[in-house]
Structures are given as C-alpha cells and as structure tokens.
C-alpha cells in the first residue's frame, strides 16, 4: 500500500495555500535497468483536491513529474478548521486519499 501524503494547508487573508508531498516512485517507463530491460511505467496520473466536496484543483500528470511529487496551489473560500482532501490515482490504479485541516 502506498505511504501517506503530507498535506499542509494554511489560510492567509482569504487565500488558502495547500502544499502536498506524495510518496511515489514516478517511474516514467522509459528507463532501463542494469540488465538493459525496460523498467515498467508507474506514475501518478490523476490528482484531485477538494474542499467541502467541491473540487479545487485537478491535475493530470506523467512520468516527467519528479519522484515523491510536490504540488502547491492556492484557493479562496475556505475557513480555518476546514478540511482539504487530496486523492491520487496512478497508472496501475493504485490510489491514496489523505486530508489535512486548514491552519
């Protein structure tokens, strides 16, 4: 099973900044191992962040996003104590959902 994400969400003024770290290998599928065999692709394809059930960001990724991906974005309309939920799905249909409380 995938390791948890670290999500930090902080409200400043009327804007919430969300910073997410995801534990993922992000193997692009183009690299070869020592024996010359292609290493199969394994990367996060879809990311969906939501607040109170409403999507605040969707992303589509490739193996060109770095290993253990970092994502930062900002949105309006949240209050301290609200939850931000982040979900990712990779190309092997493995998925992980974590949440953080806005500070």
């Amino acid at each position, binding site marked *: 099973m995938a390791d948890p994400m670290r999500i930090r969400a902080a409200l400043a003024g009327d804007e919430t900044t969300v910073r997410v770290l995801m534990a993922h290998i992000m193997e692009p599928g183009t690299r070869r191992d020592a024996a010359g065999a292609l290493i199969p692709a394994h990367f996060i*394809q879809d990311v969906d962040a939501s607040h109170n059930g409403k*999507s605040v*960001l969707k992303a589509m*990724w490739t193996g060109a996003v*770095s290993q253990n991906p*970092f994502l930062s974005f*900002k949105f309006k309309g949240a209050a301290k104590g609200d939850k931000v939920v982040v979900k990712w799905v990779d190309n092997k249909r493995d998925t992980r959902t974590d949440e953080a409380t806005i500070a």
Partner: protein
Amino acid sequence: MKSTRRSALKATGAFATLVSLGLVTQSQAQAAVDRASFSVKTLDDALKAIGGTPANSDQVTVVSPDIAENGAVVPVGVTSKLPNTTEIYIIIEKNPTPLAAAFMIPAGTAADVQTRVKMGQSTNVVAVVKADGKLFSATKETKVTLGGCGG
C-alpha cells in the same frame, strides 16, 4: 542573430493579433486534454494536443531556475494574471514526451501552481494557459548541469 530576433518578434506580434481576432484559437471550453496527448513526441504536437498555437503573453510567468544542479528534480511554477484562466500546461521542450503536466483550475482557485519535473537536458520550459478559451504562453530556459563525482 539580430534578424532572427526581429522576425521572431514580428511573428509573435502577428500571432498575438491572430489570437486576439479569435482566428487561431480553439474553443474547447472545458476540457482537459486526453491522456494520449501526454505521449506525443514534439513541442508542436503537444501544442496541437492542447488545442492550438498559444500567443506569448507577459501575463503568464514560468518560474524555473536558470540552472538546475540535477535534472531529476527541477522546481517549476506557472502563474497567470489573465482573467478566467482555466487550464495550465507545463511543457518541457527537450523531453522525449514534452507535455509533462496539466492542471484544471476551477473558479475560486488561483492560476498559480508549482511542482517539480524531470529534465533530460538543458531545455526551454513552456507554460501554456487557457484563459477565456484562448491559449497563451511564456517560456523560460533552464540549464541542467552535471553535479558531483561520477558524472
């Protein structure tokens, strides 16, 4: 060099005009690209997949380092000051599959995202945004250097 630059600027101007006339834009109002777009091999094809030719805009900013010590992790951020920015694309021109990431920005979310991407070599980073259904871009070059021992 000079003449190249002048014609380049001229081309930009012409394109900006075409875009403002709505002649070269696509009108996919909502729309994420399809997954196949991420496997195209050239910048041109990536732009086609996104929906056409963007106009250079000083309202779009790509933040990436001038020099990256390691191509495996290069911080890249894109911001757009254009109203109604709904999509952001990060294209790494020299990567084997240039389109690296796409972001869909709903109302209420700032057109301001940051992530980290891989670069196989020194390259232009092209940010394309869709605002009011039209495409705009900004470009920044990042040099990738060798690091320590063993390189």
